[in-house]
């Protein structure tokens, strides 16, 4: 009987980074199947890293994603520094965190204003939104520009920064150049506070999910560039230990590699997870903004992730400002790194804007990469996103098709999936398209 079959299909999802599609089918009033498919061709990064010298990995892996290159560079650097047995000094670590804040600022502003907010306001895109609220969109673009400026000062440019190397940086930016960021960052922090107030007023579907959150945790500050991998009651691990716990399963029916803990537990990384495990470590200004926006210490409504992202935007601006004020140029700008001639292994994890990013490398005695493993946020979140879709469709069956389609797309965009990242590790659609 196929008389009550409803299917929602979005081929070529818009306003996500990369190319993906989603399919939902509803049979006799119940959700029969959901899938978020990736149809980006894989680029085989793990294969092409083999036989490269370890110093080349940050620049090569940056090219996995133009939206979060610093995440790739940072996870690669920390993994390879671990392989070399090097710990960078506090100045280098602070500069790395500052650069990473720039990436959070530009990426979160991009997602909130250009990719996600139009969903809540019934617009096709930010251009249409600007017709109604030009000042609002201009504010978002101004925040984004400040993030890019910060990345340019520290990294040389905002897309695929050139100043990062294993061990630190090629050159420390001057005190003057860094100090000049204070004004724009102060403005961006104010604009970020306005962003929290703005998005808190959106209408949110009443959906909650019982996520298993996984995020970095440091105990003394909100996690960005480093930390232990933590999940309440389940996990408190180094990046290396985590790499053994996270298992990627090659599911033939599906198009994707699904990452699960111990091969069976679905989990979520990203803003909701970071916030749930670290909200107490946010600076006062961000905690106050969160409270005023009605957020508690944990948020389980995926649609409200836009509010959490906005709170993280306040944090990133505030943290960048703090780092700018305390800036001491590292000298030398990089720690010397060389690979042990016995061969070595190193893993590193950092918080990309959209979630945990794990790198692990094995090096031979000449410093050449023999094995590379990269676990990006989207492949970790893929299963949780599909579960969200199932829940959202179940609670939204009264909507007509265009509305339900939009709701589904929104449910995917809640997690800011970066399909460009995921695709390099995910399988392709088997069906010929």
């Amino acid at each position, binding site marked *: 009987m196929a008389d009550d079959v409803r299917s929602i299909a979005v081929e070529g999802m818009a306003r996500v980074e990369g190319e993906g599609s989603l399919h939902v089918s509803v049979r006799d009033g119940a959700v029969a199947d959901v899938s978020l498919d990736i149809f980006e061709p894989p680029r085989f990064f793990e*294969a092409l890293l083999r036989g490269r010298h370890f110093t080349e990995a940050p620049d*090569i892996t940056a090219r996995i*994603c133009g939206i979060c290159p610093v995440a790739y560079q940072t996870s690669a650097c920390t993994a390879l520094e671990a392989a070399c047995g090097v710990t960078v000094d506090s100045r280098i670590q602070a500069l790395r965190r500052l650069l990473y804040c720039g990436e959070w600022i530009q990426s979160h502003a991009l997602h909130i204003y250009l990719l996600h907010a139009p969903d809540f306001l019934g617009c096709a895109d930010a251009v249409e939104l600007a017709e109604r609220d030009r000042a609002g969109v201009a504010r978002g673009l101004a925040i984004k520009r400040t993030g890019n400026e910060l990345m340019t000062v520290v990294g*040389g440019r905002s897309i695929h920064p050139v100043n990062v190397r294993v061990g630190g940086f090629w050159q420390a930016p001057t005190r003057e150049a860094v100090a000049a960021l204070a004004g724009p960052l102060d403005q961006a922090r104010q604009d970020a506070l306005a962003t929290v107030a703005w998005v808190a007023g959106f209408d949110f579907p009443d959906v909650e999910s019982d996520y298993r959150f996984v995020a970095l945790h440091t105990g003394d500050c909100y996690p960005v560039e480093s930390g232990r991998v933590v999940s309440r009651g389940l996990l408190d691990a180094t990046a290396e230990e985590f790499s053994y716990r996270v298992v990627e399963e090659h599911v033939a029916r599906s198009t994707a590699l699904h990452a699960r803990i111990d091969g069976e537990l679905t989990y979520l990384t990203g803003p909701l997870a970071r916030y749930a495990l670290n909200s107490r470590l946010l600076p006062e200004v961000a905690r106050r903004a969160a409270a005023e926006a009605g957020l508690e210490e944990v948020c389980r409504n995926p649609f409200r992730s836009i509010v959490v992202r906005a709170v993280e935007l306040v944090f990133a601006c505030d943290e960048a400002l703090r780092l700018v004020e305390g800036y001491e140029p590292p000298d030398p700008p990089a720690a010397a790194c060389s690979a042990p001639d016995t061969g070595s292994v190193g893993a590193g994890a950092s918080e990309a804007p959209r979630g945990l990013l794990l790198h692990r490398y094995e090096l031979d005695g000449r410093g050449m990469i023999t094995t590379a493993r990269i676990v990006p946020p989207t492949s970790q979140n893929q299963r949780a996103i599909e579960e969200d879709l199932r829940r959202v469709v179940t609670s939204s069956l009264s909507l007509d098709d265009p509305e339900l389609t939009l709701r589904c797309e929104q449910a995917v965009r809640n997690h800011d999936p970066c399909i460009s990242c995921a695709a390099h590790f995910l*399988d392709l659609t088997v069906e010929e398209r």
Partner: protein
Amino acid sequence: MTTTATSRPEPGRPSVAVWKFASCDGCQLSLLDCEDELLALAGRVRFAHFPEMSRTSTGGPYDLSLVEGSVTTPADAARILEIRRLSRRVVTIGACATAGGIQGLRNFAAAGEYAAAVYARPEYLSTLDTSTPISDHIEVDGELHGCPVDRGQLLEVITAHLAGRRPVLSGSSVCQECKARGTVCLLVARGTACLGPVTRAGCGALCPSLDRACFGCFGPSDAPNVAALADRLVGDGHGRGELGRLLRTFNAGAGPFAAGSTALLGPDPEMGSPDHG
């Protein structure tokens, strides 16, 4: 912020489409990164297809198609022909689209090796054994180099093509920009392996200004002498493996770089000796 009005452009305005093939999204992100110009640009042209920005997509024909990424699947090889058919002008943006990108390294490996190395079940993949630039498949009206492209150059290319004039882009080398900037030459002063002499200008000699040698992300300049540079660097004590790998990154597939790296490394798909200077 600019003050240009942003009312929905009427259909008479030129239509621009942005297409993605195998890539990292970085080059099209350059467009969204034009914060000061984005709303003004959206007022002057109609983004008829730009999925990273909008849910709305209208069919062709398009006045200008910007293409990011390389061709790596049979489906994409067919799709680019269709895009050409629908577009008055096609301009490729970035190293992936103009040279095959970092994913083009598979072109130097044995067929099927990469898929087998990453996927437990390579039989489910429908990828080609090569990653090829768009110009291997269709005639293009312009190419913009860089990994990523430069934002200012991208705006120049869009403006020029819509006005029907040639964009003003330099074919000279990073060295030229480096000298104009007055940076101390890393190659001369320290014997560092710098690709500036053979790399296309456009970035303003960014890396040397940060005390880093150019690694060629803008691809080969017009008429580069890669062999002469390689000879000199080998003479300075750099290893052939190191130099070969240096040429084999984002623009590995660009003719002069591909020839240069093959001359240094030989046909051996292993990436040469471990020396890295």
